[in-house]
């Protein structure tokens, strides 16, 4: 086995997942401007609904994946309609929304623990988890799927944001909610659509991680934190930035895992985050975060 090729394959795989999570998180983040930690619950719910559909209801894999994504979308929209929407209409600050989403995440994570236990669950896919050897690197079928699906979905999202009416209104609300409303844009609906798209991406990413590795109740938070690191490193406003950030962070993590041990992967990512926040808080492609408006 060729170590360098293996590191490269691992980097590709985690960059695919990180960028998917980061882009999915960024879509509602751009229109609502708050860190929605409930996104982590949506991610985990995607993975666990895949588990329920496949292992308990014995649905075929394609149907289970569809159910997982639909369930994530539904859950994301319920969170927006029942908690974030009412809070925003009351004029709550981003900090209040963040704290509410933290409570939601905490609640959901423990609900999953209660239902499924803290131990890792995995789908028994048999042949699917058999590896192929490509240039000396060992990769599984799921990993190949993930590396293909992630750019395709991100491409579709970029197209949606750039070329459709929904995308344009979304960018309008992101830029200036007041002005968008004055021009007759229903901002509540646009935000709901943003949550639906973001949650769908979370569902896909959750399902892919669930298929590739084990699932645990806290998987959502670890994925989300990587997504946030990637997003801040790349600049929160920019999708190419998120992809570049995803590659940079995964490269650093896997080189670190190779050289000093895989248990330090989280710490490596967060040291990168701290370095960026100290020296370049706007990320690669971002604009300066405004501290206060006078």
């Amino acid at each position, binding site marked *: 086995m060729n170590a360098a090729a293996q590191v490269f394959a691992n980097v590709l795989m985690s960059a695919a997942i990180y960028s998917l999570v980061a882009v999915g998180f960024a879509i509602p983040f751009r229109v609502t401007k*708050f*860190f929605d930690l409930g996104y982590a619950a949506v991610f985990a719910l995607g993975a666990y609904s895949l588990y329920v559909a496949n292992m308990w209801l014995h649905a075929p894999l394609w149907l289970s994946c569809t159910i997982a994504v639909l369930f994530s979308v539904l859950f994301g929209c319920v969170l927006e309609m029942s*908690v974030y929407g*009412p*809070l925003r209409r009351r*004029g*709550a*600050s*981003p*900090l*209040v929304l*963040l*704290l*509410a989403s*933290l*409570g*939601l*995440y*905490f*609640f*959901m*994570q*423990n*609900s999953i*623990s*209660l239902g499924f236990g803290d131990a890792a669950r995995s789908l028994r896919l048999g042949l699917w988890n058999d590896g192929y050897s490509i240039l000396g690197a060992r990769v599984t079928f799921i990993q190949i799927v993930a590396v293909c699906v992630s750019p395709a979905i991100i491409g579709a999202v970029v197209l949606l944001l750039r070329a459709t009416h929904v995308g344009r209104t979304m960018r309008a609300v992101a830029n200036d909610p007041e002005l968008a409303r004055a021009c007759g844009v229903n901002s509540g609906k646009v935000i709901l659509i943003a949550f639906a798209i973001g949650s769908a991406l979370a569902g896909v990413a959750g399902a892919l991680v669930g298929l590739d590795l084990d699932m645990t109740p806290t998987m959502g*938070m670890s994925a989300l*934190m990587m997504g*946030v*690191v990637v997003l*801040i490193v790349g600049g929160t406003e920019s999708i190419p930035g998120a992809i570049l950030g995803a590659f940079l962070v995964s490269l650093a993590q896997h080189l670190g895992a190779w050289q000093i*041990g895989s*248990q*330090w992967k*989280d*710490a490596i990512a*967060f*040291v990168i*985050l*701290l370095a960026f*926040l*100290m020296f370049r*808080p706007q990320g690669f492609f971002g604009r300066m*975060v405004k*501290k*206060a408006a*006078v």
Partner: protein
Amino acid sequence: MEYLLHILILIGIYVILSASLNLIAGYAGLVSIAHAAFYGIGAYVVALMALNWHTPLWVNLACAIILSCLLGALVGIPSLRIRDDYFVIVTFAFQVITFSVLNNWVTFTGGPMGLPGIPRPEVLGLTVSSHLGFLLLIGLFCGLTFLLCHRIVRSPFGRVLKAVREDEVFAQAAGKNVAACKMLIFVIGAGMAAVAGSMYAYYITFVDPTSFTVMESIFILSIVIIGGAGSLRGPIVGAVVLVTLPELLRFVGLPSSVAANVRQMLYGGLLVVFMMWRPQGLLGEYAFEKGSTKG
């Protein structure tokens, strides 16, 4: 009786933790989820020094406070540059890194196995080993914490903190050194959390990384929010409510495997409910929005 004293000791530890986080989050408006990290640093410094060098309580305590303050200053540096919700993410990062070090640096911290057998402390020549003794010791530190918080909040420095919380630009325009104030209160809070950590290590005589996770940070933050941010009595009320509430679950007869999750669901649910209907908490005056303070 032992059980009742144990609950009171826990309340005492959480009063110190939440009162110090209240200075940071409630008075200065800097929401931090790194408080369990400073708590853990305090506990580990004491555990390592007591186990390896058998140094007395006051020396260990002083070292724990100093190290925690230094690390607090290190984390405080980015807080001078970024917006409040990014600050939450920075503190989250520090929390994860700290846990990672405690959990993975096995030769130094014992890793997941923790550090057992921390010797009992000696105060004025007496060995503290009974529950009552610990309650008195922790009660003493609670009192000191409360006095310190009271002094800070009523001082001109405390008023500047509130001004920073309500309107940072205005405070700056009035000639206040906003950055230095934020830094100072964060460092003070980190030091106080280390005191709570030291007490915890001596009382339980065992430390392991799972006591100092993000969940613990969120729990401390929930105490501050539910008790009431920006109020001196808020954290005390919050600590009493949130520590005793799950003990009531014990009497309902839930099996312990379920009870742990139900307890945390309760905290999460309470956090959402309070954010939606009473963001200033039971007694608080700060509702986590600029210029929101009433009266």
